Structure formats: C-alpha cells, structure tokens
C-alpha cells in the first residue's frame, strides 16, 4: 500500500505516515506538537485525548518561540499503530496546531525529564540515599537534618529507577515535569 505523501512539517497534517497493517500491539510514542500560543490551546489538545479516549502518559508545554507565538507540547502516548496514526491526524486537524512530529518514528531523539524527590530519614538510610543520589548524579537542592530534596534529570526510566531506590529509604514526595524531547542531530 502506498503511504500518504504529505510534506514533513507541512501546515495542517505533518508527519502523517500510514502504517500497512492494523496491529493490536500497543506502542509508546513521543509526539512533539507545535501550537499557536493562545488561550485554550492546551484544552483543545487535552480535550481531543479525553474526548476520543486516547492515553496521555506525560504532557509538557511551554512557549518556545516568543516572536512566532509558538508553544511546544510534548506528549507521550500509548496505543496501537492505528490509534497512534489517528492521534497524529486528529492533532493535525486542530486549527491551532502548526506541526505534529512523531519523534519515535522520525529518527533518533533524546528524551529528558526533571524530577524532584523529598526523602526523609536518619542514620544509615540517610547516608544511603545520599550515596545513591551521587551515583545517579542527582543534586541536593534542599536539606534539613531529617530530609533531602534531590533534583535529578534524565530519561524517564532513569528517574523511575531512582524512585524505586528511594522508596525504601523514606521517599515522601515526588514532583516530575514530564518528558521534553528533541530529535538528535540537525
């Protein structure tokens, strides 16, 4: 079957790439969506996901081009290839959306997330937390005699791993930013 020929980065439905089969296997995709920075645009994107029953694993948004009035929304979603294609096409038809990129299929990309962990404890546990933080290159951004706040940046699975280690050591609170991602190279 022939794929749709739509220029990458073209206005209303970029990165549209049809798959040959309807597979049942769910995949995790990271989408970068460039949108008009205007009130309500995030609601449009989120409303699309909730209204059509798609998953959002993580979502981040911030203005990336002040003069061009553009924000970048990074969405991590899970679905069958058909659902992923639908999500991209549906995002593409939102009038405020300028570009949709599927970083998972468009080539190698880097994903990073920032997280903060508050870990409370004394004695050995406290020492162990600090030691592990060092191994994970987490920074201490706040400390009291009974607690630390660590700041860690990395791919989501590194942060998951750090969370798993901190849990038995007195993890009390976590804040994660969600994924930001960029394609590698030029």
């Amino acid at each position, binding site marked *: *079957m022939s794929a749709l020929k739509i220029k990458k980065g073209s206005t209303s439905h970029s990165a549209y790439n049809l798959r040959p089969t309807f597979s049942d296997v769910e995949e995790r995709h990271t989408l970068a969506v460039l949108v008009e920075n205007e009130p309500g645009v995030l609601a449009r994107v989120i409303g699309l996901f909730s209204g059509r029953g798609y998953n959002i694993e993580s979502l981040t948004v911030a203005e990336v081009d002040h003069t061009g009035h553009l924000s970048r929304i990074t969405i991590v979603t899970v679905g069958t290839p058909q659902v992923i294609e639908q999500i991209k096409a549906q995002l593409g*038809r939102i009038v405020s959306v300028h570009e949709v990129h599927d970083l998972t299929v468009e080539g190698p990309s880097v994903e990073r997330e920032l997280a903060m962990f508050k870990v409370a404890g004394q004695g050995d546990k406290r020492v162990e937390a600090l030691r592990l933080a060092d191994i994970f290159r987490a920074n201490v951004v706040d400390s009291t005699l009974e607690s630390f706040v660590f700041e860690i940046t990395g791919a989501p699975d590194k942060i998951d791993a750090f969370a798993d280690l901190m849990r038995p050591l007195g993890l009390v609170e976590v804040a994660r930013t969600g994924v930001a991602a960029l394609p590698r190279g030029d």
Partner: protein
Amino acid sequence: MTRQMTGAKMVVQALIDQGVDTVFGYPGGAVLPIYDEIFQQNSIKHILVRHEQGAVHAAEGYARATGKPGVCLVTSGPGATNAVTGLTDALMDSIPIVVLTGQVPTFMIGSDAFQEADTVGITRPCTKHNWLVKETDRLPGVLHEAFHVATAGRPGPVLIDIPKDVQFAQGTYQPPKPSTSHYQPQVKGDMEAITELVAAIETAKRPIFYTGGGVINSGPGASQLLRELVDATGFPITSTLMGLGCYPASGKHWMGMLGMHGLYEANMAMHDCDLMINIGARFDDRITGRIDAFSPKSKKAHIDIDPSSINKVIKADIPIVGDVGHVLEDILKVWKSRGRKTNQSAVAQWWSKIEEWKAVDCLKFQQTGKTIKPQHALARLEALTKDHDRYICTEVGQHQMWAAQYLGFEDPNRWMTSGGLGTMGYGFPASIGVQMGHPEALVINVAGEASWLMNMQELGTAMQFNLPVKQFILNNERLGMVRQWQELLHGERYSHSWSESLPDFVKLAEAFGAKGILCSDPDDLDDAIMEMINHDGPVLFDCLVEKHENCFPMIPSGKAHNEMLLGEAETQGVIDAKGSVLV
C-alpha cells in the same frame, strides 16, 4: 480601507465584506450593540428565529442549499448554550457556519455574571475552531479568519465569542485580504496514489463508487466531474445519506443509497465488489455494518480532504488526501491519458449480477386499504413535485429513511438532512434557511410528528418572514424509529415510543396564521398535496399514515451487508446480544 469604528460595527462590516446576505439570530443583552448596527443598515437581512437552536439549523440549511457559509447571531449564556446542538450537528455533517455569540464584558468574565457562560469552553468540542476576542482591534482579523476556517478544508462550524465592551469600543477595521493563515489544508491529491487508483480502475472486475457528503461539500463542479467519471467508466455508483444528489437518481449507473436502510442492490454490491472507490465518505457505522465483515474481497481507495478520516475505521489500500473536485479532475486526466481503459466484459457481468439484485425490488410496497402507507405518501410527493425547483429537508426517524429511499435527487445541494448527529428538530428550521437562500423554490420538510414538535415554534418565523415552507408530516403517532427498534430488540415492549395528546396540527397551523391540511384517505392524497404546493405560504400538512409500518430494507446492528432484512417476515430474533448494545 482601514477605518475607525466600534466592534459592533466591525461585525456588520465584516459580514458585508464577506458577502453575507442573511443572518439568523435572536437578540439579548450581550449582543445589543450588534443589533443596534443591524438596525441601521440594509445590506444584511436578519431572520428572527424563535429559538437559538432554530437559528443554527436554519444557517445549516442555508449553507447546504447555497454552498455559502451560514451565519448566526445569538446572545451570551442561554443564547449560546441553545446553539450547542446545532453546532454539534454542523460539526458531524461538515457544514460551514459562523456563529457569533455575545459575552459579558471582559472585566466581568469569570465572575459568574448574569448570563455568563464559558462559551468557548462549552463549544470547543463542538466547533471546528472558536475564538474569544478580548480586544476590538483583533476583531476584524478573527472575523475574516472565521470564514476562512469554516469553509477551507473539511468545512465545519466556527464560533466567535464577543464580549460586550469589545462591541462598544473603537478600533481599526481591516477589510478581508487573501488569507495569511497557517491553516491551508491540502487540496491536491498525490499523483502517485491517483495513478495507482487509475490502474485499479482499468482492471477492476466488480468496481463500485461509494460517494458521500464530501462530493457535495466540494462544490457543484465536483458533482459534475463525478458524473463524467461514472458515466465514462460505466461503473455502478451508490451514495451515503449525505451524498444524495451528487449523482442523479435518474442516472443510468445509480444504485440508490447504501447503508443501514439502504437499497439491497447497493449493499450487496458493496459487499461483493473487488474495487471500492470511496469519494468523500467516511465509513460511518451506518454504512459499514459489522466492520470485520465489511466488503471482505475489495481493494479500497479512499479520497478525503481530512487525513483523520483515512484508516480511522477501515484500512485504505489507496489513500488519497485532497479535495474531491481536485482529485476527480486528476483521476479523469490520468485515466484519459492512459487510453480510457476498463475491463468492459467483466464490468458487464458485474452489472448483470447487480440487475439480479435490483430485481428483488427491495422498496416495493402495496398501498391497499383505507390507510395511507408512508411509502405511498412519499411516492406521491415525489411524483407531484419532482419537476419543481425543489429542495427537501427532513427530520429524523423512519420518515427520513423513507424520504431518502423514495425521493429522487437529481442535483447536489437539494437534500438537507441531519446525518451524523441525527437531530430531531433539524428539518423545520433548516427548511426556513433553505427558503431564505432560494426564495422562489419549492421547499419541503418531510417530517415525523414527534421530530416536528421539537422546533415547532419556528412556525412563527416562517409566518413573520413570509417563507412558504411546506411541512409534510408523516404522522404515525409514534416515535416510529424507536418503536421499530423496540419491536426488533426489546420484545415489542413499546416503552414511551408513542405520543399521546398530539396537537390538532390543522388548528396549530391556524393558530400561527398558517394553512393546515389534514389527509388520511389515500384517495384524497394527490389533491391534498397539490393544494399544499399551490398554497402561497407556509403549510402544515398532517398526513395520517399507517402507525406500525417498519422501515426496510434494514441491516440489523452487528450484521454484515449481505445479511439485510427485506421485510417483516425476516425480523424474528435477528439481533443478537452483541448487536443489541450498538445504537
């Protein structure tokens, strides 16, 4: 020419500059400045409806019958919320309309002010796009952009929410200029895919054109090209409810509507074809029936301007994103340049198979006895009106399906029905919009008594503006379609599917100053219809019909195209548990 003026004046000026001649609306506190401007000009006619839902359906009817975007003006709060059904209807059927709503002044937004509603929030999922305009200087740009977005690509409803202080404030008006919007949907199809389709056309043994509302939306030129392609290839053509009229019902290759209540031959041919050419249709569940049994042997080409329609439901072997008119032009060009080839002998055999299916005569009925059969009423309406400059609207229910089956449409833009949303109450206001667009035409709304009552207040509108719309009510004193499903699915337990205390429709008409006609005897039918046609003014035609007639053919929920029911005898226990959860 840029000029200083108030926001309210900008609204009227922008409408004039966009070529708008008619606005359907209803005033209220938050739009009074705009109404004040409407009062002081003569370029735009304002039609005062009796309910904001009516305004939106009227604008939809106007848009569908004229090909121009319909325009509505309503107030904040309840005015806006009353418009929601119409917006959703227009979104589902891809109808270009521009709805202007008043809003409380910017400094009161968020304070739960009187008649404040989060209009852009409420209408975000039921518009193609919407705007809240907080600065008067932004208003002209947004107004012009709204017309662009409503009509470009896959058309749809848009809404502009305008706070009252923005209407009062002065700003700089900008006339429309060529769109600089980033929103520019692709209209040209990919030539490689088009060539692949042409190659498939050349060799297909059992081809079928499956067309839809996209052909109508692409404009009359697209219908013209479609006719040329169909007649030149000699392939059979069917259409969805939304596409009726894109190919003439009297045309040699026409097979009638397909789908849940479509014709036997059309559905059988869809099931058995080897090449399906979907032009501007979207594999709606009313069309496909059971997905895994849908046309199992065919290669499927899908032409659609909306990339999200492709592969949404049915996998397309040859996907083509583009405007139907542009793509058809290219298909014809390529096909002709390659020598206009088709597999004629195989297609002839295919036609003889189709003729066998046609011989089943799935729409046959017998008008016997003293009660009018709804099918007979429509057959007579067809016979007596088909030579008129005629536009047909419908409400939703059995009568709608019978109208699609028994009336013939020769041209696009002549058939206005709520397809995607199935909105009872659509047809009457839509007929008002159609009549505004075509003042001299014969505009008929084929209605059910229950649907018609949902927006009956618009009789006041029809009278006030001398719109001679004909309301042809097939009165079965039942929510007929609901009753039919209860018969088939719920053991004939008719829970709340009949209307008691129906009004005397003749007296009701007279109460508004309109003409009422009652007809219950098949022998009187023709004369009564002629009386309706010849009356210069709105008519409420109460046609008492058989109360328990079911609409056939029918593909029961959860069944495949080749498992159609043709009549009463086949209905016992046909829908299994899995089918009964479907709507």
